[in-house]
């Protein structure tokens, strides 16, 4: 039994919006990073769903790429997190606002 494409895309859209809301609402950098992961995986799900619908391998290849980028992003993000914590003694993203115009 195959899942209809609309369901997959709807789920991906809902996941993306949840992740975006997390990024906007959360002040803790760790949670922001996690929300970004959710957004990335929502994109991945959309690729997989559409790839399955057309019976093409492109969607799976894109998902592999997103997976790798997500891993790299987490590494960089955690490094930045450490730096932010060292400089501001907090992991509240609103503290790091010295680029205010």
């Amino acid at each position, binding site marked *: 039994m195959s899942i209809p494409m609309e369901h997959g895309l709807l789920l991906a859209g809902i996941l993306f919006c949840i992740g975006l809301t997390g990024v906007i609402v959360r002040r803790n950098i760790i949670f922001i990073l996690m929300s970004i992961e959710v957004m990335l995986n929502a994109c991945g799900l959309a690729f997989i769903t559409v790839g399955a619908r057309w019976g093409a391998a492109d969607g799976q290849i894109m998902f592999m790429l997103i997976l790798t980028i997500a891993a790299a992003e987490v590494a960089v993000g955690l490094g930045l997190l450490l730096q932010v914590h060292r400089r501001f003694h907090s992991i509240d993203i609103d503290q790091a606002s010295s680029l205010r*115009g």
Partner: protein
Amino acid sequence: MTDLLWLIPLLPLVSFTVLFITGGRLPKIWVAALGVGSIGVSALMVGVILAQWNSVPVTQTLFSWINVGGFNPKISFYLDGLSLTMLSVITGVGFLIHVYSSLFMEDEADCSRFFAYMNLFVSAMLVLVLADNLLLLYLGWEGVGLCSYLLVGFWYDDPANGLAARKAFVVTRIGDTAMALGLFLLFLHLGTLDIQPMLAEAQVVWPDGGTLATIAALLLLGGAVGKSAQLPLQTWLPDAMAGPTPVSALIHAATMVTAGVYLIARTHELFLLSDVAMMTVAMVGLLTSLVAAFSALNQTDIKRILAYSTISQIGYMFLALGVGAFASAIFHLMTHAFFKALLFLAAGAVVYSLHHEHNIFKMGGLRKKLPVAFWSFIIGGAALAALPPTSGFFSKDAILLAAYEVDPWLWAGGLLGALLTAIYSFRLVFTVFFGEVNTEPSEPAGRRMSIPLMVLGFLALVGGAIHVPVDQVFPVPTEVEHDSLIAIITPLVPLLGVLIAYLIFLRRSVDLSSVLDSTVGKAVRQFFFSHWAMDWLYHYVFVVPYTFIARINRNDIVDMVYEGVANLSTILHYCVSFTQTGQLRWYVATMGLGLILILAIALGVL
């Protein structure tokens, strides 16, 4: 020798550069040697060229100056009889004046600066008369204007001198602007500024004159009027007497102020195309000579009398140009350079011995004390008044007779001017050198000042015998048998003037004090003393409205547009920088909103 023509203007320029760069660190004897020597060598070279002259014009092209789209003026010199005459006057009289200055300016701390400017002036003047195209001529034209400014304001410690220099510069600039417009017009319609091809082209393009030829000639006349201190731009010359006396002799009597005469003589083919232009030149000359002569009658400052007489004599040259007697104009230019330089230098010698006293009524009885200055003034005054057999007689006589041929009224006006000239020049001579001694003079000037006076005195006396080599340059005037009555009256009028001056100022047998001291007489005298109130008029007609507008426009109306642009950018800058909160979450939210907006537009929802 003509191969080395380019050296003649270059030598004074080199000397200027050396004096300018060393800036007064050279010993004074070197400064004088360099300043006088460079002009001396140039004068010598001109003398050799003059001796070998065979009336064949020489063109010497040095290099291309500008080359843009068919506009190709060159640094190129053109030597014919006219420019050779000018060369001789500039280097010859210039050399004598430099010799004189070497003593006159000896005590001056800024002697080096003085000679530097004088050399630069001579160089620019030589470029002016040698120029093969009008653009190079214009370069020399502006160069002499600059030097005039620098030298009038030479004693810059006194603000009055600076003001006089500025006035000279600004007033001549009005004429220069007209001349520049004339050059544009000529280039636009004739396609070249090289003088000889341009004049030939003018006769082809405007065969029977017409409006454009008249306008071009009048614009050139505007430049000439400014530089030569003619109506209505003559007010700067009397004030220019603020400069040292050798400057007045060289720049404001012998050479620079005659540049306008040279310009018109140089482009006379253009002026001949238009009767209106020729008549304007003649009228300007006649009116100026009369206006200035009336003013000269009432002055008390020895140099101002000479300044007004210069304006008046250049008026005669313009009159000669206007009636087509170009050779007579150049002849009068040369004799005027001799006798007016002589008068100025002699006046300088008087002033020098009287500790800078300029008022002629505080002088008197200097005949025995300063014999060289006295005889210089007698010769110079006689030549200025055109008494036979001095040089001034021959040149002015020729001008007046030529004027008679065109219009007897021009002759009559010129004759009235000649009468006034005789009266005011001998009023000066009688007041300064005869009568009682009012101020005791110190030692008379030394040899370096008296020898140039003697040489110039000799030239002013016998200069009438010199034949100016301009026969090939100008159309030959038709020989006319003059009415014998006219030919007799013309030379007699100056003698009458001298007699009147003798009776009034020396014998005092004619007492005019009751007339002169009446209310009307005083008012008239004040009117002439102030040079027909022209300075007053110009002050209220031009200067006051100009400063008024300048004051209104202090904040620059045109600038407001640009300030508005700047203010708008600043406001926009604050709007945009307001969005830069530094809050990451705010950026994300706005990006998301923006994305939604773009998607909505792309999908056609909005």
